[in-house]
């Protein structure tokens, strides 16, 4: 039937700005009817030259740039940079600072995952879910504001510690929010996760096979949904994650196939309770002491050397390679971001999908163009 109906291919360019796209990028599709035959990707519309800008600024100011790597999950960029710089300069963050960092990192993970859930909800047209999720993310952003003074680009982590001690009531509110989140997660599940219409949209759609994921070096929740058990927090523990007890969920393909869009969605939902577990444990045992090992001035100099910091961001392995030639300015700061791999495999995943699935697929991949373009 399809053979006889063969029609000419149409070309459709989506972007750089379109409501279904996760950020400014251009998709050049060749479509056969409504089926995508192949797609090409053009990115770079959000290139801000962060890595170059960092070379032109004193060390403390680079943190501001690192958190603009992905403003939605700002802490991870800062953490990767600070870990690398601490490795070079031999600074050691005091235990209290480590605990605050873990709190921030897990709160950010939850808030980024909630943002992801909201984006998937928006792509599938589930309005109520979006509002519930954003309402709850607001609570976490409130926590950020209480601790750091900003809601989105926090700029709070410093070399050898954090910028300030926890404010009064912060720890209690973290515990409160993590209790609340457990209730909310159940609500999301009842409302959306196994909704028949959502399963029809997401289950079995946009499957990333383990081999494909591996070929492009995919990491993070997307890779774990595909069955690759890799989590930086386990493989290269930082911030004392080795002492914490948590599981790394893997995708099973409960509704469709392993590594499909629903699996990716579900995996993030499963990661939130693990992060809540960590939050609870750390918040209850915040050690006393200093929050930073020294005050970082503008004249802060990093000795000659190199450092490499790996962090598990909400999207995967975020690494930072710092080269210093002993001065007030960095010689080179390079980021390895997880979205690069996701973007690289995107053309292979979209081939064969109907265009109506494109928004759901793009939302389910959790692309961050801000991060990929830098």
């Amino acid at each position, binding site marked *: 039937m399809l053979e006889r109906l063969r029609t000419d291919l149409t070309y*459709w360019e989506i972007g750089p700005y379109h409501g*279904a796209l996760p950020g400014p990028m251009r998709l050049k599709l060749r479509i056969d009817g409504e089926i995508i035959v192949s797609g090409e990707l053009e990115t770079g519309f959000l290139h801000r030259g962060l890595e170059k800008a960092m070379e032109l600024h004193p060390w403390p100011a680079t943190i501001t740039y690192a958190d603009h790597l992905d403003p939605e999950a700002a802490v991870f960029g800062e953490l990767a940079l600070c870990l690398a710089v601490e490795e070079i300069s031999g600074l050691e963050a005091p235990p209290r600072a480590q605990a605050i960092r873990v709190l921030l990192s897990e709160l950010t993970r939850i808030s980024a995952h909630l943002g992801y859930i909201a984006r998937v909800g928006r792509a599938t*047209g589930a309005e109520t879910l979006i509002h519930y999720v954003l*309402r709850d993310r607001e609570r976490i952003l409130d926590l950020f504001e209480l601790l750091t003074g900003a809601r989105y680009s926090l700029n709070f982590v410093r070399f050898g510690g954090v910028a300030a001690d926890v404010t009064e009531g912060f720890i209690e509110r973290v515990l409160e929010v993590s209790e609340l989140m457990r209730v909310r997660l159940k609500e999301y599940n009842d409302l959306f996760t196994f*909704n028949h219409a959502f399963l029809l*949209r997401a289950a079995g759609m946009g499957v990333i096979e383990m081999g494909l994921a591996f070929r492009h070096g995919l990491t993070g929740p997307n890779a774990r949904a595909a069955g690759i058990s890799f989590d930086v927090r386990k493989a290269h523990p930082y911030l004392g994650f080795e002492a914490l007890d948590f599981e790394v969920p893997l995708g099973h393909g409960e509704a469709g196939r392993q590594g499909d869009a629903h699996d990716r969605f579900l995996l993030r939902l499963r990661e939130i309770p693990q992060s809540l577990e960590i939050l609870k444990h750390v918040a209850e045992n915040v050690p006393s002491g200093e929050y930073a090992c020294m005050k970082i001035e503008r004249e802060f100099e990093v000795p000659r050397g190199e450092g490499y910091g790996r962090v598990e961001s909400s999207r995967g392995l975020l690494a930072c390679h710092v080269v210093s030639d002993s001065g007030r300015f960095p010689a080179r700061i390079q980021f390895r971001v997880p979205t690069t791999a996701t973007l690289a495999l995107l053309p292979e995943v979209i081939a064969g999908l109907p265009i*109506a699935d494109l928004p759901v697929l793009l939302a389910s991949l959790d692309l961050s163009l801000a991060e990929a373009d830098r």
Partner: protein
Amino acid sequence: MSSYPQEASWINLLSSTLGFTPGTQEWVFAAIGLVFIYCVIILPSAAMMSFLDRKLSADFQARVGPNRAGPAGVFQPLADLVKLLQKEAASTDWNWREALWLGVHTMALYSTVAVIPLGSMALLVDTDMSVFLPFWAALVLALGTMLLGFSQASVPGWFGGIRIAAQVLAGAFPSLVAVLCAGIHSGDYRWSAFVGAQAAFPLRWTAFSDPFQFIAFVVFVAGGLVMLAVPPMDAAVSLRDLHGGVSSHLFGRRLSLYRLGRFYGFFLWSVMATVIFLGAWTLPFGLGGVLRTREELWLLQLLETLWLLGKTFLLMLAITSLARVHPRGRIDQVTDFSWKVLSPFSLFALIGSALWTGWGLLR
């Protein structure tokens, strides 16, 4: 309880009030009736429904909803309308094809005002075909919308147009069969016959008279959603992947006309569902009979229309609130749902209700 004498029709009352002699051409009456219904029923309903819908969905979503324009935001629809009307064109060249097909689309839509049943005396056209006229209008509407999409020469327009056509064809079949089921129950396809077969008490409504009619009711409503691309079956005008499909290039006045048309389609369908399946305008407690014997025709007509619209609004609100929690289906899933779920069930209901009614007659 067959049709009422033409002399009693509200339109004659209205035209005599306005000073027309009985010899005036019929089309003048019809035109007056259309404008009257449009201004008095449809526009206020659209405003009210958009406000209620927004408030209700806000309640669902732990929000406040519109609350700044007037007390509790009641004037929000008016504010929206004013805003849309004063918007300027994005481009200076006048897309006459778009205007043409928007016109066709709008005319097809509002031609059904002639057959919309709003009360025992507000039946402009009550023939044995009147229930099928909205179907015809929906097909012309689909053609108009499709060509409206094509005329925009953009990918969302093309895909939106084709999808609209696909959805109308998919949705028309099961809802047509569902109407047949109701026809078997009531014996004729006049509005008055549908009304006559029901009473005010919910268990005497066609939808609840037997299980097959209930299936037919559900199929009719769901088929209508597919046919008119109402959420959650609005894949044809999906905002995410198609930029709103056909409407992606409309703006300002044209957009408000188009939106109003979409609302009217949904409204018409809900009125039909209420008349055919949900007890129509029959007033409770025998109020209708009392008023008729007392010759309070204006009051009777008013009460009947309000009662009907009240039920219609409840139905519409139920559907929109369902759309709030229900993810949007993909276009092929929507048409699949119509062809593979609604259609078999409608046929099942048709056979069932035929047997049920036949068995009842035999006994």
